[in-house]
């Protein structure tokens, strides 16, 4: 089989790239592969499937009709096992080969399993694919007790979902002694932690897994303290790493993920990578980083698609700053939302920064109402923000950070009334941009 564009993976990065390619090249053959047996979906939705908040049939991001209309050859159950970049072809698990002119690797991540003795042999489940979600739901039907390992987004979310299903849930941290340590500082983390405790999730951060024993399909989680937890369902959500086990000797350079430039190009001709699999520019530093967040995957997919389709505008539209192509990737800003038991929280930018690092921190905390707000300033610039149950527009804050808007003498007012001020700044900046252009 031969195709002009080949996209491995069918979540946000792959879908956005396909969309963009079709804007610029309506006719070039385009093939999209998924190793799964279903239509495209977002891994972000999986905890909600476990929770039962939404039905599986409702959440697919595209349907067959879309692929027909866009003339995209969407193939399910196709797992890539090797890339031969010299011959411009990929090999699939079923033995077939697909030759490409341009290739996008958007394979996302694989769950990591911590090196806990006995865990590999144990009957554990992860939550990265639709199949995983179905399995958890299947096991949870007859389960009374669950152990969730990992207090990151997946682990926390899974714990809440299983708790709501009526299981008794034991949530055990991973390497770091905190909840959501990538997004929330300890003050915010404590608030979130308390809500989980209040809702009946057992989560003692002093507990740490020593080893896992398994017998008769059941697992026994042994803690450092010697305590042993017998469980019907063991879920591991301790992290994700890029899915790159098929690179073989393709020559595609990878570190933690596939290394890409600002156009999402890999080190090898005609191969791009985007989304959770890509290790791309950082907004702050020079080191390339994994971001692993949804909006970034879409942004990167769009850039990759533009470049793959050879849209000249990408390279013509040079920005005034630094001569960088205007549409190229400027580095990811950390951002996420986390919603738990009816509470809303978000974290954007350098949300973990503290005063010792030379940042100015403005916090507001009302633990009894589970409210928390943190604004991080670097001089007159906003560089990070956290909110729990506060009314703010995270998207506006992200953009104030991204556009490096100088707050100047408005900083104090911004800190005291961030909602209206941030809206005003964003709308002024947008209108200003229109006026400058005009």
């Amino acid at each position: 089989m031969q195709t002009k564009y080949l996209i491995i993976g069918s979540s946000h990065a792959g879908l956005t790239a396909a969309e963009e390619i079709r804007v610029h090249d309506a006719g070039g053959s385009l093939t999209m592969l998924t190793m799964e047996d279903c239509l495209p979906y977002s891994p972000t939705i999986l905890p909600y499937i476990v929770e039962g908040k939404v039905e599986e049939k409702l959440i697919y991001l595209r349907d067959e009709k879309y692929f027909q209309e866009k003339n995209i050859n969407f193939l399910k159950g196709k797992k890539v096992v090797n890339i031969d970049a010299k011959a411009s072809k990929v090999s699939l698990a079923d033995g077939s080969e697909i030759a490409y002119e341009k290739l996008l690797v958007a394979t996302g991540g694989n769950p990591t399993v911590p090196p806990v003795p006995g865990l590999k042999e144990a009957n554990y489940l992860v939550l990265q694919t639709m199949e995983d979600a179905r399995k958890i739901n299947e096991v949870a039907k007859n389960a009374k007790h669950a152990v969730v390992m990992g207090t990151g987004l997946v682990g926390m979310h899974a714990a809440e979902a299983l708790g709501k299903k009526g299981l008794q849930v034991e949530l055990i941290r991973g390497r770091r002694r905190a909840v959501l340590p990538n997004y929330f500082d300890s003050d915010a983390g404590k608030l979130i932690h308390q809500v989980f405790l209040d809702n009946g999730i057992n989560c003692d951060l002093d507990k740490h897994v020593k080893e896992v024993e398994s017998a008769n399909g059941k697992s026994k989680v042994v803690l450092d303290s010697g305590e042993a937890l017998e469980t019907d369902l063991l879920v591991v959500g301790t992290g994700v790493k890029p899915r790159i086990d098929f690179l073989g000797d393709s020559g595609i350079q990878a570190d933690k993920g596939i290394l890409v430039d600002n156009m999402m190009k890999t080190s090898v001709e005609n191969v791009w990578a985007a989304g959770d699999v890509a290790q791309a520019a950082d907004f702050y530093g020079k080191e390339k980083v994994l971001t692993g967040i949804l909006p970034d995957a879409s942004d990167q997919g769009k850039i990759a698609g533009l470049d793959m389709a050879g849209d000249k505008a990408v390279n013509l539209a040079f920005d005034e700053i630094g001569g960088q192509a205007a549409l190229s990737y400027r580095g990811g800003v950390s951002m996420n939302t986390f919603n738990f038991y009816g509470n809303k929280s978000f974290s954007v930018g350098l949300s973990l920064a503290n005063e010792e690092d030379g940042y100015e921190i403005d916090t507001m905390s009302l633990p009894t109402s589970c409210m928390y707000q943190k604004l991080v300033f670097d001089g007159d610039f906003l560089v990070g923000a956290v909110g729990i149950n506060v009314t703010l527009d995270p998207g506006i804050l992200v953009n104030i950070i991204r556009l490096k808007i100088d707050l100047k003498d408005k900083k104090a007012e911004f800190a005291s009334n961030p909602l209206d001020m941030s809206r005003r700044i964003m709308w002024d900046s947008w209108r200003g941009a229109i006026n400058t252009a005009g």
Partner: protein
Amino acid sequence: MGNAYNTLVVYPEKCNGCGECEKACAKAKADSTDIVHSRIKVLKNLEDEYFGPVVCMQCGEPSCVKSCPAGALTKNPETGVVEWDEDKCVSCTICTLGCPYGGIYYNPLMSNVMKCDHCGGDPECVKVCEPKAIEYKTEANVYKDQGEREDLFAPGLAACLGCNMEILIRHTLRHVGPNTVLAAPPGCVPGIAVVGINGFTGTKVPSFHPLLTNTASMLAGVRRYYKHIGRDVQVLALAGDGGAADVGFQSLSGAAERGEEVLFVCIDNEGYMNTGMQRSGTTPYGSWTSTTPVGSSLPGKSGDQKYMPLIMLMHNCEYVATAVMAYMEDYHEKLEKAIQASKKGFAYLHVFSPCTTGWRYPQEKTMEVQRQAVATNTFPLWEYEREAEKFAFTHPVDNPTSMEDYIGMLGKFRHLSKEQIDHHRNTVATRINLLKAIAEEGIKPLKAAV
């Protein structure tokens, strides 16, 4: 081709912070008096006075849609509205990370995100906005309708960059349709290749190039001939102000007075711009032109502009109207009436058409110049229908903006002294007062006196 969409437009400078839009939205969307349910938000509690509602802009490439893991947000290809599907939404609020303008918000009372949906095409907030800081622009309908029709103008043209005429000619020809004979007397209209280059016309309808002096009489003859052989052919003149108000006036006046069945469009760029920016009868007082230069002894044109639309109204035309391309819906409504009127008698449209080259303003400001001309009452929009005995403003401006806002945009007025600007103001005031008097009194015979 993509669809054109109607838009909710916000003018923050007009907003007085009254918050009526929020109340109307909360009422319409949640039947509540609590404005937490409002999809439109007015900025408040700021140290300096600054208002302006914040509302979803229904982006062309919405970040919220791309960020939604549940497929609950979609851009409707027909209406352009970014739609939210409650059944699919899992309330993850990642969409609020994507939107850079706060167009989608989390509503803690409903435990859902919410966003503007244009109320299905009839936004409630617009209805209650007393200072008109929110408008629902439906021009898209015009573009959709006209987009269905054949473009009767050649793809290439030789106009200056930023010229108002391409949009005017394309829209006008699409609307009048293929059963048309077009006359384009000397001026910018033939100059940009309407009547052709090297033996080919720029239009897909028969077009010809009369003398500057005889456009209306030639068209009258064409119309009469076709009528004589039993064909109902639309005749149309696209003439400049020279071909209408100056050199072309005697034939225009004659044809109008005789009630010839002609549709005559005067594209008024206030001078002979095609031949090097000489002054014409419609050049306003004080304007720089190449024949009214600015120097030690002359401060631009010394006389006033003659106001053609009223002169034409007094010819007992079937229909007379003023229009600008910046108000496209208004233009199409008037054009339609003019087409109908020209089947019974003379129809005259006077289109104010700024010239980036001759008036010296940045080429991308052509529409803005028109808006300002209307906003300052320099060029009021009105129409007269003889049969209906109706004279009415179609875009009344009760609180005109400062004359300097308009004058300041144009290089041809750059030298104006304060006295000259005052002169302008007076001319404009006199004209608008006269027009208002006509509108108030109405144009009808004094039946009681007969």
